[in-house]
């Protein structure tokens, strides 16, 4: 099959490649760019394990052709920690609040939460639940994911995290 050139910035790094036009962004990221953090869980854009930021918006990268990301700025889970290795508030929050178990949905969940907190820096619990409803988790029952995002929001906003009573 004929190949087309594609060029994008991934986690601040310029990436160029020749790809089949039908290449999905998730396969491009995982198999050509070597970034295996985003996962594939369903193939039908229900589970959100493949969520990345595309031009500062959450996308399910199994439902985007890599060529559609031509010229775009992509951020994946691998681009979340600071250059010195300091974890992003969400990465820290998920660990502190036990917001993950098998870890398979986690990169997508964190990337979705990342955009959510940009859209709404101080979301309520219901807003978080709606905001992450495109991302499925089979392990946690979401309760601690909600807390993880609240923890991160507090940290980003520079206020102390207060756990809501159950």
């Amino acid at each position, binding site marked *: 099959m004929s190949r087309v050139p594609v060029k994008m910035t991934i986690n601040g790094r310029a990436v160029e490649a020749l790809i*089949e036009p*039908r*290449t999905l962004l998730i*396969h491009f990221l*995982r*198999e050509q760019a070597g*970034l*295996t*953090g*985003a*996962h*594939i*869980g*369903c*193939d*039908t854009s*229900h*589970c959100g*394990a493949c969520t990345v930021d595309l031009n500062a918006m959450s996308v399910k990268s199994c439902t985007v052709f890599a060529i559609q990301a031509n010229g775009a700025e992509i951020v*994946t*889970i*691998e681009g*979340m*920690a600071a250059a010195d290795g300091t*974890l992003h508030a*969400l*990465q*820290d929050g*998920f*660990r*502190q609040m*036990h917001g*993950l*178990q*098998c*870890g*398979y*949905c*986690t*990169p997508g969940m*964190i990337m979705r939460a990342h955009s959510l907190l940009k859209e709404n820096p101080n979301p309520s619990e219901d807003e*978080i*639940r*709606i905001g*992450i*409803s*495109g*991302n*499925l*988790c*089979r*392990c*946690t*029952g*979401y*309760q*601690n*994911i*909600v807390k993880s995002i609240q923890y991160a929001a507090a940290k980003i906003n520079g206020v102390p995290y207060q756990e809501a009573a*159950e």
Partner: protein
Amino acid sequence: MNDMTPTQAERTGKLEGLGCRRKRTEDIRFTQGRGNYVDDLKLPGMLFGDFVRSSHPHARIKSIDTSKALALPGVKAVLTAADLKPLKLHYMPTLAGDVAAVLADDKVLFQNQEIAFVVAEDRYIAADATELVEVEYEALPVVVDPFQAMAPDAPVLREDIKDKMDGAHGPRKHPNHIFNWQVGDKQGTDAVFDTAEVTTKDLFVYHRTHPSPLETCQCVASMDKIKGELTVWGTFQAPHVIRTVVSILSGIAEHKVHVIAPDIGGGFGNKVGVYPGYVCAIVASIVLGVPVKWVEDRMENLSTTSFARDYHMTTELAATKDGKILAMRIHVLADHGAFDACADPSRWPAGFMNICTGSYDIPVAHLEVDGVYTNKASGGVAYRCSFRVTEAVYSIERAIEVLAHKLGMDSVDLRMKNFIKAEQFPYHSALGWEYDSGNYHVAMQKAMDAVGYPALRAEQKTRQEAFRRGETRQLLGIGVSFFTEIVGAGPSRNCDILGVGMFDSAEIRIHPTGSIVARMGTKSQGQGHETTYAQIIATELGIPADDITVEEGNTDTAPYGLGTYGSRSTPVAGAATAMAARKIRAKAQMIAAHLLEVSEYDVEWDIDRFKVKGLPEKFKTMKEIAWAAYNNLPPGMEPGLEAVNYYDPPNMTYPFGAYFCVMDIDVDTGVAKTRRFYALDDCGTRINPMIIEGQVHGGLTEAFAVAMGQEITYDAQGNVMGASFMDFFLPTAVETPKWETDFTVTPSPHHPIGAKGVGESPHVGGVPCFSNAVNDAFAFLEAGHIPMPHHAWRLWKVADGLGLHA
């Protein structure tokens, strides 16, 4: 001592051992996208496999033409049954003593069954090529309803064994019959039923569903033809057993088979068995001499690799008028699909279904299970439960509610009246189990107090009156369940997998500088073993958990174990971990005595050190002892400080719990909203409460899914319905209720640290709790038993059937 000397509490705290809400070791890599899952693996020259699957649920294969697929550039091979037959690999043995087709030979028995395996340079080309394989079918009549499977004129499904009327578990009554399994005293039970004052009889259907972990089943097989060695990376909950099976099937000596389970993205029972994808990838790699990857897509996962449940349970209770249960009788019709591939210990064709007397002191009981073949995918895996325990608990917990309603008794009172009493443990059940420990009345009372049970019933009564007056269209359901699990299989005297006893193992090595590497025969799929096993060792050996690395999944380095499912990791490998640590501590005691120049009887253990009795300032820490183990030993002692333990548990463990659910149901929309869900779990000694609560949240969420909507169905023609996340219900954060967790602690008397296991309890107890809430809401309208799943459309139909929309 001076003020700088750490207190005992400080020393204990530093270990982060038993009881600590320790943050997980695993999360460091998972939160940074540095997990190492099977599909992340990329090897030079690796090819991809994909399946051609049957569009028919039952058909004779007249021909398979692979020529167009083979002509597609990039396609390297197409395997069919004809290729596997000479290798005797077109069928493979199942855990249940049956065989299952790897690639369909002559006939297909369920929709999406594997017919051909295409191997190509990349996954896109492989997918293209599957569409170029031409299969000619001759459709055959299907068996979808298990109740019709043994009809005299039912089409014979398994022609390969049609004349073999003696199955793996005794005689078969019909070509579509798999086994008949009976436990208990039939005559004695029947006699009680003949004269009982009150009896109940209901058909409780526990519908077919699927574990559906977020990561599907997948593997990479890599044959090194020079060394004659095969390496298989895969999503294996039981990697050591997989190695043994691969060795037997392939004929490659077991020491030349390397099975590695890297990080696994959830299992829930889906990743115990061997699937055709593994076999085909291995064969393709052996034939082609390059690595071959196989990754299931979601539709393949839901429709082929291992469904769960599909138990049709006719459950009867006999009782006195005042609510003393006298006997239980159950007949189960078990729909196993096309092959008997249940993932149960080999001698247990219906798993531990005979735990069905539940938490109650029922004097006599009889259980009979008939397994049948139908034109559906095979499986019958333990989806987040010990073998068939969810089915058993659902059956008794629904039956209790039905009996309470018939007697006009509160179902909690009925439970309290019939619970096994604390002083009866160890308790011998009518169907053969020895319950290790329990304190049911206390747990139930604590749960009732926490939810304010009498006030809820009063509110319900008020609501029912308002409903009858037409003032509300909302029903209030109060779901109660009290469950006893049976986990930690198991004593090898009665539990084995393909002849290998169900022990488990741990190996602990202390390095000279006092840090530790430990390896177990189990395999975490998200349970946090790297964190919790380290906590057990930390407490046993006084080395901080942060200085302990836990590894699992590599069959070359880890000791042999039977893997992680049926909540067996803590009860079995957790016990092995404690026992191995104690071997090390015994040696450390001798080294400490040598260093302190006293007799080993004059030193005693103190958190992280051995001290001289009565002289607390004279001590050697475990770190000092570790160093000495490599350079300053008592005369004649073997150097080093390590131990391995293979633990064969004396008994199972029996976690239990009391759950309450409060639910509002709108009769006009059928929408059910869980207002409150309270879960009290008793899993014995609690290793890491944070992880326990997380497990409970997750198990309850899967219980909510199963009870309220998750289902694999087939239409009358045998087409599988709902094999994608479009139709198969996985709750999002929006639908999922909020969970309240609580606990009591009744240690297991036979487990070295008293732990029982918890991962599956919330699913086992949660499903009947939700279903009881729904049934309870409608009970005052005499709705009878309402079958699961309780999604809005079905509840609307229940309301409609009761004339509530007139």
